[in-house]
């Protein structure tokens, strides 16, 4: 067995729930999110064998978002991506999730795809992890003002992606 407790994979389980959450938020399907968790775990193991990241959560968030966005991109090219899925534990959630929400998720993932890794990380840390700008800046090793700039740029990208849909809702 390649893994030894406390060395090569040390600490991953502490963050695994968050990794799952970040992935699930943009993929919307349990098993897709678990695939990302597994990918990230493999990368963590490789990274850890060289050097433990100074900011493990920041490193994991960045890698997870990259993997999740990659997966979203693949899903968007899949004809069945908007079909309600019934895979195992996601039955209840999928059955009740509207196509509107699935479309919103795809739009947001598409907007995030156009952001830099830093902008993406700041946005997710702020909106979903509810961190302060000071905490985000400390974790990412940037100035607080830089974190705020990344946040605004990221929000603008999401807004610009969604704005045509809002116009459709106002003028159907």
């Amino acid at each position, binding site marked *: 067995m390649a893994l030894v*407790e406390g060395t090569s994979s040390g600490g991953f389980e502490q963050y695994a729930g968050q990794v799952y959450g970040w992935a699930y938020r943009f993929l919307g399907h349990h098993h897709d999110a*678990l695939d990302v968790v597994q990918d990230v*775990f*493999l990368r963590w193991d490789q990274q850890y064998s060289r050097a433990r990241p100074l900011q493990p959560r920041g490193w994991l968030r960045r890698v997870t978002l990259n993997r999740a966005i990659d997966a979203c991109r693949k899903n968007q090219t899949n004809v069945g991506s908007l079909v309600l899925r019934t895979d195992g534990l996601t039955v209840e959630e999928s059955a009740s999730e509207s196509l509107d929400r699935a479309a*919103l998720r795809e739009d947001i993932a598409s907007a995030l795809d156009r952001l830099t890794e830093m902008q993406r990380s700041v946005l997710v840390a702020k909106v979903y992890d509810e961190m302060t700008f000071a905490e985000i800046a400390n974790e990412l090793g940037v100035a607080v003002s830089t974190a705020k700039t990344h*946040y605004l740029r990221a*929000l603008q990208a999401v807004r610009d992606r969604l704005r045509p849909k809002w116009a459709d809702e106002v003028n159907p």
Partner: protein
Amino acid sequence: MNCKDFQLLLADALGGELSEADRPGFDGHLRQCPRCRGEFESMSAAVRSLQALPDPQPVSVRRVGGRLILSESSHGSLGSFSRGMLRYAAGLLIAFTAGYALRAGLTPREAGSGGTVVQVAEAGSGKDTLQGAIAGAHLRNPARSNLAKCLIAMYERRP
């Protein structure tokens, strides 16, 4: 407060960190300047859209040997789920649970303890092992991950 000052506080306002000292000036400019108001409202709508994505179900994580097992702790409300769909979902749940347990080489006792086993995430970085080679192939081409996972499981179940 002018538009430039307003822009400097926009991130704080959208991020819920606007100080009490800055709020009156910010709100005052918001009422007076249609352009800044439009900017703030559209950015606020973007935040609300992001927040509209549902929270993931909480998972618990535990280690069994070199494996990490993620278990869902609750299943939430069933709402208007029909009995037929409930039975269908239960069947799928059992089938997937059994499938994952078998694929990962877990015994039924392991699979049934402490929640439903929904995934076994495993990493092998030893380059001199078959598992390490498979893990490397998986990283190079994640699209083939299912094959890689099955090979890993088969390799581990060898006597």
